[in-house]
């Protein structure tokens, strides 16, 4: 957050919108920290939107949520050790992701196990925060995201992590889709479903680590689950659903950043609110016709 907070501290007036859209957009990109934020936000949105489809299809939303919280302990632990939190995040999310994947897809017992581990690692995170004598700013950034403070180096790391996740998704695409649709059918055709489950959670860990940079561990749903959940309400074609999810994640991130730039309030709030509002509108719009039918019945 160095450049971002510096800027906000020095200029005591927030930028103002004009009626010239081009000028407003150009204004956003005058500052390096906004360029960084847009670059990181873009790669994160692409990865989160794409993997979100499989998260929704497989019913692993809770797993995605848990990964980010478990990652919080890793990130705070890394801060205590004086390391970049992203490495702690990666280590904890990858490790726990592989473990969750190995639990398989028998939903009930899986989610209980995940919840138990999740509670313990959050406890660890609290311990690490108390050990770290610096300010709570670091923890705040991890919990709620601090995309305006992202450095060029962090953008590069984010891009590499995103690239790895996308390549893995492309390689796994068809068997992962098959196993997500029906595990028994896929296994009968020779798809290594357990190995895929582990690999998928590891890739999800990469995506979660990336998304934490933008929205923080508490708000991760907004980028990974919400866009895909909206997309599958519009189309039942997998490639189209993935593209729609990516498009929505991009729209939420870009718009959220732009609004955040012209407002004193946090970017995370705008991204999550855009995602939620869109989801709400879609649910209501799709439910309305059947309500109308029911109401019209004698």
């Amino acid at each position, binding site marked *: 957050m160095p450049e971002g907070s510096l800027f906000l501290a020095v200029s005591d007036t927030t930028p103002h919108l004009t009626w010239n859209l081009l000028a407003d957009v150009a204004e956003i990109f005058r500052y390096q920290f906004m360029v960084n934020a847009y670059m990181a936000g873009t790669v994160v949105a692409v990865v989160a939107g794409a993997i979100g489809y499989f998260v929704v299809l497989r019913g692993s939303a809770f797993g995605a949520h848990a990964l980010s919280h478990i990652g919080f302990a890793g990130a705070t632990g890394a801060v205590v050790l004086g390391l970049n939190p992203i490495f702690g995040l990666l280590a904890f999310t990858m490790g726990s992701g592989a473990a969750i994947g190995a639990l398989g897809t028998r939903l009930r017992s899986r989610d209980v196990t995940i919840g138990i581990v999740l509670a313990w690692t959050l406890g660890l995170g609290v311990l690490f925060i108390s050990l770290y004598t610096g300010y709570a700013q670091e923890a705040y950034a991890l919990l709620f995201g601090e995309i305006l403070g992202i450095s060029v180096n962090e953008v590069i790391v984010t891009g590499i992590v995103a690239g790895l996740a996308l390549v893995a998704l492309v390689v796994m695409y068809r068997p992962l889709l098959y196993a997500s649709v029906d595990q028994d059918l896929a296994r009968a055709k020779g798809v290594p479903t357990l190995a895929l489950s582990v690999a998928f959670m590891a890739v999800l860990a990469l995506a979660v680590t990336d998304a934490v940079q933008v929205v923080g561990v508490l708000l991760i749903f907004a980028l990974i689950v919400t866009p895909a959940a909206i997309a599958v309400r519009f189309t*039942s074609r*997998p490639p189209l659903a993935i593209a729609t999810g990516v498009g929505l994640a991009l729209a939420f991130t870009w718009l959220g950043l732009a609004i955040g730039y012209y407002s004193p309030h946090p970017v995370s709030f705008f991204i999550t609110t855009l995602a939620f509002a869109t989801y709400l509108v879609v649910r209501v719009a799709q439910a309305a016709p059947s309500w109308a039918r029911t109401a019209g019945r004698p």
Partner: protein
Amino acid sequence: MTPAGAAVEARNLAARYGSRLVWSGCDFALARGSFTAVLGPNGAGKSTLFKLLLGQLAPAAGSLSVFGAPPRAGDPRIGYIPQTSIFDPDFSIRGRDFVGLGVDGYRWGVPVGGGAGKRRVVEDAVDAVDAGGYVDRPIGLVSGGEQQRLLLAHALVGRPELLLMDEPLSHLDVRNQGSIVNLIARVVRDRRITVLLIAHDVNPLLPHIDNVLYIANGKTAIGPPSEIITSEKLSAIYSAPIDVLTDRMGRIFVTGLEEEAMHPHA
């Protein structure tokens, strides 16, 4: 029995699931193109036989061969319809995409080119099961009978020579059971596919099946329905008195078992 050309052959086969010996001493040979109903109470080990045939479970004893070789996982000659394959209403995948997964879903990567060949194979299978009217709807939103037709189409696109169906009739009403059974019989006769079908009620299958493979009480018995579903044979399998009744329509009812009986209306 023609063991030389048998599609599936078991010799003194035994199955173990975990530490439990499920059944043993199983001997049969199924001719190519034959239709066999697999019957027996819940938990008797009917699905376990399928796991053995799919190469997902090794025999505890004896031998099993599929087209002259031991079963192997991912054998493209085997089509499979798992038990309780019912999709949630909000499961958002088109029937067409679901059927297409049977063509290339096991291959790595994203599909590159060659879409026309796949489309034709999918179209043929969809036509074969008369699913054209709803193949473009999300599979979770079509009826149970329509889902079973799509599952059959999904199995057919792999051009199977052996089809394993685990209770494809259990979620259907009587009328739908009849039409699905007729469809299965027609499709497999056309293609000379060998079929093993697990069911609880043999009656809708009676006009079409060659054999009944009865699994119960750790034992198995195979033969034409008229030889297997008899009071003597079933009483011997269960080691308890069993009555088999036939009504004026030719329907078979088995009585004398507890609630897990082969019950026409179960």
